[in-house]
């Protein structure tokens, strides 16, 4: 039997805050049913708050527990600043 794992990719746009966190959680949980690896494209995200960051951390932990990883793809400048200020850039895989 061959097991083929695919990398799921989620692309977000605009503000990513407490109002969007639940929708992201549902999306990430669904994606993680198909793959332990998740790529979250943040190029078009202009703001993340602490609730959104907590959702990204939660998804990252779920990926790693399943043997995969969560990758933040091309975060926009404002998002990158927040990641650096909170030192979360040291916790995430960012490409």
């Amino acid at each position: 039997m061959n097991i083929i794992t695919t990398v799921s990719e989620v692309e977000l746009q605009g503000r990513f805050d407490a109002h969007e966190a639940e929708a992201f959680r549902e999306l990430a949980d669904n994606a993680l049913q198909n793959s332990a690896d998740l790529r979250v494209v943040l190029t078009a995200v202009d703001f993340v708050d602490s609730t959104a960051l907590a959702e990204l951390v939660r998804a990252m932990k779920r990926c790693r527990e399943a043997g995969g990883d969560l990758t933040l793809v091309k975060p926009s400048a404002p998002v990158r600043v927040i990641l650096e200020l909170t030192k979360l850039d040291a916790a995430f895989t960012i490409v």
Partner: protein
Amino acid sequence: MSSTAPDSQVSLLAGALVDANDQLLALYELASITADSLDEGEVVTRILLRAQKLLQTDALILNTATPYSVGEPSAIDDLATAQHSDFAGQSVVASSTCTLDTGQQITVSALRRESEFGTADNKLLDAVATMLAGAVNTARLHEVAVTQAVMASDHETASQLAQSALPRWLPNLPGADLFARSEPARSAGGDLYCYEVIDGVLHFAVGDVSGKGLPAALMMTNVISASKAAFHRHSSEGSAAMLRAVDLWVHRSLSDAGMFVTLLLGSFDPASRELQLSNAGHSPVFLERNGVLEPRLAHHPPVGVLPIDEPEQSSEILASGDRLVVASDGITEQMGNDGGMFGDDRLHDLIDANPKMSAAELGALLFDRVEMFAGTAPQGDDRTLFIVNAVPEESNE
């Protein structure tokens, strides 16, 4: 040409009119029952008792999740048996079904041993069933409303208890001019600050638990407890040791809850003017030294993200007039009427433009400016400020 109705027809018509009038009166009496009680058991039993009398039945049963019945025990048994077996024996059974707001069906059944049910009786039984459904709906809505009110009250009490974990008084510490205030966006928030003076040294923690509301507030109290324990057990080892202790204490519970806390732990010794900081993801943190105001970046990701195995700390000797300003993102991320954010730069510039202010004056100014900036926009997140001014030791004795 005229005709005269036979006496028998007049008698039947008069009887029907009397019956109809009796039904109307019966409905009126039934309706008056539901208006004065919201207890399901009480109002259902009263309607059944009244209906039993009006319908002249030997037993009535209402089948709901909790069945109700009135009548002689043997008649109730007969009715229950008849319902299950479709056997009425020498008696007559009638029933009517209604649907509750929840979609659940209720059936009211009646038993008469000595006469049959007529058309009017069946209509009255339908009216009784409708009345019972309305009463059950109202009683259950009332019960839900009461439960929600109790939960809201409990939530408010828990929120107040959580917020009471924040210290209300600032220590009078010669050599340190202090300000601390937290304004939650809701009745409870996840922002925190706490401090202790141990052997003349101020140890403090400022943080922000991710998320909002009561869950964040409850976790906040846990972090405050861990920080205070760390002050007492590990302050002599430095701020990094305190951060390590807090991380060991709360990492697992935060991680399991899918939360984290940005946390700055520090110590300021007014005698030596040494300021130690260990910062796990907290921002913004500004330190002004010799008139130069600069942000201080975090050493580690927030507590709860990854275990902090080897915590770092910074240490510097302040001069009189130097100051530390720690805010929460509820200050810098406050939205204004124009849709823009207050921002780190605006906070930096306000601190920079007021170098001679006391900690209390600067704190009040910053809160005022954030409120002015917000205008009619709602408070988006908890707002917290913690300020330490290094001052000559005799200045605030």
